[in-house]
């Protein structure tokens, strides 16, 4: 329940006995101004909302839906779709010298205006009345719907937006059901290639300008705009430019109709077949909140999920299309053991024994572990346990540094560097990588465990370095050149295939959920590590589930204290301060403060 609504309930319950004049000054409605609130009547109920709230947001707080197309809380409000028209009223201004008259409920009588106003760009005022239903509002909506549908091709059967299309939904809810339009519809360009990821269908467009505003305000690359005028108005890309921005797919998300569709998802699957799994993006340290859309065991698309502390409502294209790498042919599906320079398929039991055998016969300082910043907290925790059980302190992750794009893509491309630092208890979890590499080259290190990393491609190792090792254990999702040299290879799982927790660059603990099942016999990395640990440490009690590992982690690592898998929630919790900020959120904050957006 929204706090404001609670307040309303109190207001209403205390109203009834307080009809006497003595209690008048104590009424919550009279205290509103002191708290920066205003009293607003929405569909007959009085509530208090913060001063300066847009009418559409006030209605949302009152759990009344005002249909809208152009309004988006993260974008400016031009008020050009006219769908959010509501009826507004104010108390009549008293004659000079006269006191305002109060009704039995203690509020002033509202004089309703005969014309509707748009709810998205107007702010509420003290004693304002808003009607989101009623004859005037409903007739207005019916009329607007009819206008919007005049040139719409009604090709819902082929349109990808069908099922999540606001035009469909509001047409059913508020439309008249038939068109009186007798003339020929205006033909506009269809199936226009405007960018790498985006396809434009101008006939379906209802000129809400969300995409244009997004490119102007958020992506800051103004390539979209309206051309022509009147009924010929259409969205176009600026001549000589293409919509190739790394945030272009967000325009398809916010497009209320099917005018902008994703090339990647185009005609792949109808949205009503897809199952939504809340998860997070693991392609960089930001950890954008996502929804993974699956049918059966196949991922069809990934879309951003609003989290005002992480990614607002956006997500870079490069990250959302990264899920395709999980659905390639070169996934590892069975544990492999190398015999006579040849990898042969094995069983989990045999492979685990073989891996443990090669580790335990070495001196502690001859063994090293290269973990990954892509591993989850639980996996890193078990890695740490394995290192402790072997007795080695040569544990490192592989750093992945890049350029921040000044928006959502963090300079740290590892999703869990912060988590690795917390769990390993260092400031720089990748510090020992160089030492390990030198140890391997010098032949001091005989056994190496590599978790979800390709050393040859990303950690500066050379093929001949790895050949010096006696025993190389690799877990990875895909076949790669490091795995090719390993004595034992375990097939691991990718980001959408496991439940796991990560800590992003700002120190926020977030949860990824399992959307699909890993191919073949591939197992969660924590299970692999747990089995290996069981072989190395006879006293080790393997937890029955992921949650067990997390609970052990929460007990031992102070930053995670008192956290459980459930307490993280869908939006995550901040567990540590790193001083890192996300640029896009800072920009958004500035726009909000200047009053451009609601936020």
């Amino acid at each position, binding site marked *: 329940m929204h706090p404001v609504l609670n307040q309303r309930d109190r207001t209403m319950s205390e109203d009834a006995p307080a009809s006497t004049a003595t209690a008048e000054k104590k009424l919550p409605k009279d205290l509103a101004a002191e708290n920066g609130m205003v009293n607003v009547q929405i569909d007959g109920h009085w509530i208090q909302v913060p001063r300066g709230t847009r009418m559409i947001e006030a209605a949302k707080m009152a759990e009344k839906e005002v249909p809208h197309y152009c309004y988006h809380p993260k974008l400016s409000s031009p008020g050009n779709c006219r769908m959010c028209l509501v009826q507004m009223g104010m108390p009549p201004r008293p004659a000079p010298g006269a006191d305002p008259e109060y009704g039995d409920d203690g509020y002033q009588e509202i004089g309703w205006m005969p014309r509707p106003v748009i709810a998205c760009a107007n702010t509420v005022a003290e004693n304002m009345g808003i009607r989101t239903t009623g004859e005037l509002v409903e007739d207005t909506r019916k009329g607007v719907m009819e206008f919007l549908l005049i040139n719409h*091709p009604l*090709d*819902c*059967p*082929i349109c990808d937006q*069908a099922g999540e299309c606001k035009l469909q939904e509001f047409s059913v809810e508020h439309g008249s059901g038939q068109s009186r339009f007798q003339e020929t519809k205006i033909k506009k360009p*269809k*199936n226009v290639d405007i960018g790498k990821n985006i396809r434009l269908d101008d006939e379906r467009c209802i000129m809400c300008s969300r995409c244009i505003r997004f490119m102007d305000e958020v992506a800051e690359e103004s390539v979209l705009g309206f051309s022509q005028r009147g009924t010929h108005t259409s969205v176009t890309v600026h001549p000589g430019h293409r919509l190739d921005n790394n945030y272009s797919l967000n325009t398809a998300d916010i497009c209320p109709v099917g005018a902008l569709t994703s090339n990647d998802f*185009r*005609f*792949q*699957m*109808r949205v*009503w*077949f897809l199952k939504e799994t809340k998860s997070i993006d693991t392609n960089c340290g930001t950890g954008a909140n996502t929804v993974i859309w699956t049918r059966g065991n196949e991922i069809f698309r990934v879309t951003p999920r609003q989290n005002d502390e992480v990614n607002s409502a956006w997500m870079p294209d490069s990250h959302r299309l990264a899920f395709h790498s999980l659905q390639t042919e070169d996934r590892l599906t069975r544990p492999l053991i190398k015999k006579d320079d040849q990898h042969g398929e094995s069983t989990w039991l045999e492979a685990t024994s073989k891996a443990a055998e090669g580790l335990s016969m070495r001196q502690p300082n001859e063994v090293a572990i290269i973990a990954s910043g892509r591993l989850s907290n639980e996996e890193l925790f078990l890695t740490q346990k394995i290192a402790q059980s072997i007795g080695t302190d040569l544990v490192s992750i592989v750093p992945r540094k890049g350029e921040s794009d000044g928006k959502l893509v963090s300079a740290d491309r590892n999703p869990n560097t912060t988590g690795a630092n917390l769990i390993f208890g260092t400031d720089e979890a990748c510090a020992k990588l160089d030492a390990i590499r030198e140890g391997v080259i010098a032949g001091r290190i005989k056994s190496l465990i590599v978790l979800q990393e390709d050393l040859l491609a990303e950690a500066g190792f050379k093929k001949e370095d790895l050949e010096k090792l006696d025993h190389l254990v690799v877990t990875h999702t895909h076949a790669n050149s490091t795995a090719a040299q390993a004595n034992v290879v375990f097939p691991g799982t990718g980001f959408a295939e496991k439940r796991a927790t990560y800590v992003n660059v700002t120190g926020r603990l977030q949860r990824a959920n399992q959307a699909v099942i890993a191919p073949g016999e591939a197992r969660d990395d924590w299970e692999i590590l747990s089995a290996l640990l069981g072989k190395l440490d006879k006293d080790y009690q393997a937890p029955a589930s992921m949650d067990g590992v997390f609970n052990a982690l929460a007990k031992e690592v102070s930053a995670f204290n008192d956290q459980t898998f459930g307490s993280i929630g869908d939006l995550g919790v901040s567990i540590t301060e790193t001083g890192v900020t996300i640029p896009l959120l800072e920009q958004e904050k500035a726009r909000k403060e200047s009053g451009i957006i609601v936020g």
Partner: protein
Amino acid sequence: MAIIKVQRPKLSAGEKIYFGSIFKGMIITLRHAFRSLVGKSVGAKELNSSGVGITMQYPEQKWDEELPEYYRGTPALVTDELDRERCVSCQLCEFICPPKAIKITPGEIPSSDEWAKVEKRPQAFDIDMIRCIYCGMCEEVCPEQAIYLRPDYVVTGTTRKEMVHDKDRLYEIGGKRVGLVNKWNDLK
């Protein structure tokens, strides 16, 4: 619940022996059997009886002429008068299908195609006739009038694979259907 005492009928001494009734019953049974044997059972004529009882001898005798117009046989896809596939693979039939017999792989129409403006057509369209329950929901839900339940009911096969009707087979059964909505003609 109230207890209702049922009064059993009072029978006379003759009735109590039951033989009369049993004998009468046997005569009735025999008479019925005889009528059935000579094909005079009630309804034999209306049901196209083969001569014994009211049963029709199926493969030799068929009911095809009497099939009502609304008879629901195998579902099939149809083309329009210009031989365009009516189906645009909106997958509503796949969604509504109660036994989940329909499986559609949507595909984009290449821009070189005559009907490129339709944009979308099924790449594959499989109906598993082992699963199909002939409910006709697919026909009802289709916004393009592309799928129809035909009067064919003889769907046989010796393997499961044979019982899965693919797109070619569905169009072969369905054929052409004209005079329906023409959403994709040039006026549109």
